[in-house]
């Protein structure tokens, strides 16, 4: 048996995983990164528009700070997030942006003096202060009260991923790419690493580690059309689920991005609308102000996506051979702006649509984009049920996004979570608990089990075809577990997915090779994807309310009285369906008690304690403390941060003491 040993095994080579590995390495421990693909091909690279950090340098960002970012994030989540985590995040985001500046990210910078921008379809002149010249600038994004999204043109994910992976190389952290974790190695409630398959040779090895980190990104590819990379198949969530011990959080919280191109499903950034782009219908009419007069195109993503679908249902969509769509119009921004700030968008339009976005409208429609749900962890990134198992980034639900993520908060989260979880992983590795090694016999048992499973799959002579079952799963998810959901369709989806899962155990294989064999990969991933899909569908069926991206036509109200909680999903060995239970969100500890997001008509069933908490909060606010003191009275959070990250963030208007 091939055995590898490391302190921290990081599964996933995207931004969160790589940043966590650097944190571990800098604490004098060994970290090893596993990646399905060369780490720089990870899906982080595709993030375009930017990352939110409340630096407050540019004119439209003045007055921004952690408080505003925190409140935007909580509102964006439709009060579904963990407010402590949202606070930790808002506090850390400026540090992450500044670390990246020092590591080489060529952030776009503030240029002093007057410049022209487009706001609400009008050309407006802004003046940038002299004092801000050369500091990191920001653009507008949806659901935010300030321009807060720091960017490098529209290739921000690329610039960040390259800077971070450059550090990984500089600090000699090994990346084992083209390798896939097949199963976690467990000893009761303790995780000791993973059984890993080499995707080229097919060889299995046991990677034993003090701590194991799932940083595998989202599960968008259970849907038929997704902006996600092809590798985002939810295998991290499946790894945790298959333990029968670890739990997943809020799997039904799935985001649909308003502007993916039709038919390819490739994203064009929210920065298009942030920079002044408009949504138009079949008549060339700008419809968003009719639905959301205040935020218009820059309402929260879940809201814009639903409004677009609603408008198409009213017959205002543009018909095409690939179904209906709407238009994204960025012609008003001008060719020069597009050439500088929306370069990837221009390339995508040119290569995949054959159009020039400076002259032509872009065909778009809402498309699966982000997984708010994931491996449930505490604020340190560790699974409460499986010691030694950590998770960070999109793969995790620690839970800063609740039921809807704000644009620009995912890149920021990858870095912040990597910084924080890297520290807690290092703490854990240094603890006595982590020192208890894994018995080799146990590793062998897990490896042999996977080996036998693969051999059985490769020799399968059943009458089912993996491709057919997978396409059916994708269709069911898109049709019944999408933007609009209802009880009967969800119940039918759960039944059909469960049936597909049974059928997926009877595959017939044409290529029986055990080394690089894409058919084998598809065959062993399929039942895992179906299990992940079932946690999403069942979670959506049981949640009889509408919150953020989870919208039930039969239960349109946000029901804080019954559903101010987080769904937890686990899968007991041998069961046909996941087991769900719920974790309460404690209103009496919220810094920002539940309220109205300000979109559409208010439709909320209040929690019985909301009014009491609101009056406590109001009373404290009337005491007129300085904002830091007030915050710590409302909801202290700094004790959860590593000491090195507890300091205040400097701004032009708020110099460090």
């Amino acid at each position: 048996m091939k055995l590898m040993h490391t302190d921290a095994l990081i599964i996933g080579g995207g931004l969160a995983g790589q940043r966590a590995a650097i944190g571990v390495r800098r604490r004098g421990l060994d970290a090893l990164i596993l990646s399905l693909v060369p780490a720089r091909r990870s899906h982080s690279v595709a993030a375009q528009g930017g990352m939110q950090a409340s630096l407050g340098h540019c004119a439209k960002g003045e007055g921004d700070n952690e408080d505003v970012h925190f409140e935007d994030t909580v509102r964006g989540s439709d009060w579904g997030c963990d407010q402590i985590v949202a606070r930790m995040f808002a506090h850390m985001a400026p540090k992450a942006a500044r670390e990246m500046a020092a590591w080489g990210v060529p952030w776009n910078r503030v240029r002093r003096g007057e410049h022209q921008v487009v706001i609400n379809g009008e050309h407006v002149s802004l003046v940038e202060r002299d004092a801000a010249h050369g500091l990191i600038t920001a653009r507008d994004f949806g659901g935010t009260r300030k321009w807060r999204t720091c960017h490098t043109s529209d290739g921000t994910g690329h610039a960040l991923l390259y800077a971070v992976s450059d550090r990984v190389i500089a600090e000699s952290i090994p990346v084992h790419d083209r390798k896939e974790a097949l199963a976690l190695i467990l000893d009761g409630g303790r995780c000791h690493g993973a059984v890993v398959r080499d995707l080229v040779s097919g060889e299995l090895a046991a990677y034993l580690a003090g701590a194991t980190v799932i940083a595998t990104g989202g599960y968008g590819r259970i849907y038929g059309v997704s902006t996600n990379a092809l590798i985002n198949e939810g295998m991290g969530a499946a790894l945790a689920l298959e333990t029968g011990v670890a739990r997943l959080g809020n799997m039904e919280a799935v985001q649909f991005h308003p502007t993916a191109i039709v038919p390819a499903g490739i994203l064009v950034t929210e920065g298009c609308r942030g920079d002044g782009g408009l949504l138009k219908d079949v008549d060339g009419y700008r419809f968003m102000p009719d639905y959301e007069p205040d935020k218009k195109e820059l309402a929260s993503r879940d809201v814009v996506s639903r409004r677009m679908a609603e408008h198409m249902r009213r017959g205002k969509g543009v018909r095409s051979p690939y179904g209906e769509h709407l238009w994204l119009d960025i012609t008003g921004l001008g060719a020069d702006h597009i050439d500088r700030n929306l370069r990837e968008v221009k390339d995508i339009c040119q290569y995949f649509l054959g159009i020039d976005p400076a002259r032509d409208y872009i065909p778009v429609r809402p498309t699966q984009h982000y997984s708010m749900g994931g491996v449930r962890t505490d604020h340190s990134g560790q699974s409460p049920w499986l010691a030694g198992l950590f998770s960070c980034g999109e793969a995790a639900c620690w839970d800063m996004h609740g039921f809807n993520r704000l644009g620009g908060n995912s890149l920021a989260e990858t870095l912040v979570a990597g910084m924080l979880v890297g520290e807690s992983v290092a703490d854990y590795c240094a603890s006595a608990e982590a020192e208890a090694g894994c018995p080799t016999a146990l590793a062998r048992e897990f490896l042999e089990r996977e080996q036998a499973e693969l051999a059985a799959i490769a020799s399968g002579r059943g009458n089912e075809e993996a491709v057919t079952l997978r396409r059916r799963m994708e269709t069911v998810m898109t049709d019944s577990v999408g933007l609009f959901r209802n009880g009967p369709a969800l119940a039918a989806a759960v039944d059909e997915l469960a049936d597909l899962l049974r059928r997926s155990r009877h595959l017939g294989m044409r290529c029986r090779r055990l080394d690089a064999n894409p058919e084998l990969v598809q065959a062993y991933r399929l039942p895992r994807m179906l299990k992940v899909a079932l946690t999403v569908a069942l979670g959506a069926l049981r949640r009889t309310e509408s919150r953020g991206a989870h919208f039930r036509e039969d239960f349109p109200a946000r029901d804080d009285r019954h559903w101010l909680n987080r769904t937890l999903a686990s899968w007991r060995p041998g069961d046909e369906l996941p087991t769900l239970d719920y974790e309460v969100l404690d209103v009496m500890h919220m810094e920002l008690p539940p309220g109205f997001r300000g979109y559409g008509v208010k439709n909320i069933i209040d929690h019985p304690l909301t009014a009491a908490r609101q009056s406590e909060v109001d009373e404290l606010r009337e005491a007129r403390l300085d904002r830091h003191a007030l915050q710590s009275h409302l909801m202290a959070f700094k004790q959860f941060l590593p000491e090195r990250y507890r300091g205040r963030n400097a701004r032009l208007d708020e110099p460090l003491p």
Partner: protein
Amino acid sequence: MSRSLNFAIFRHNPRDPADVPRTQEYRLDETPGMTLFIALTRIREEQDPSLNFDFVCRAGVCGSCAMLINGRPGLACRTLTASLPPDISLFPLPGFELIGDLSVNTGKWMRAMSERLRAWLHFEAEPEVDALEARMEPELAEQVYELDRCTECGCCVAGCGTAQMRADFVGAVGMNKIARFRLDPRDVRSDADFYEVVGDDSGVFGCMSLLGCHDLCPKRLPLQTQIAYLRRSMARQGLW
């Protein structure tokens, strides 16, 4: 009326000593908007589940899917079949270790190149993350980003005359990285340091100025100018 496309695709499993490299033919009916990503996925799903190739983002940004398309290196995911004649040959990118069929190990090559060239920002000290970041001229940040856009797809190496003759040649991808860090005021290295890593025939003096790299770069990086400029600076450094 839709065209019938004839694909001739390179097949070989280098781990099987009995396997002889060959091309295999597949036929597909073209659909509107069909890319090589769509075509290869259909071939794998409908005709041959064993066919190896690499797509990750399928949006032209991750650099995974470079291959020889009718003899020319390019990104398969964003190549429309409509831009090609009905006979399409697909071969793996030369200059990289073959994994199987159209899949090559660019990741291993790129990591080795980065390690050899020390291709990361050499900063003076770890940042004080609570303090205001160091200022940078907006134009300079944009110029650095221009060179930072490389996706390490390998097209420049596949299209390089020197790389075909010298396995240790760093390629335009390597020289562009040096140019990028050289331009970046946050990097403390001097030309003497850069000369150490690219000042020989495996580096900037190995370039024969055929400039296949410049013509083939999917991101249209200004490789011609950057290589010329770097060579001049390194020659000056060598003469001191």
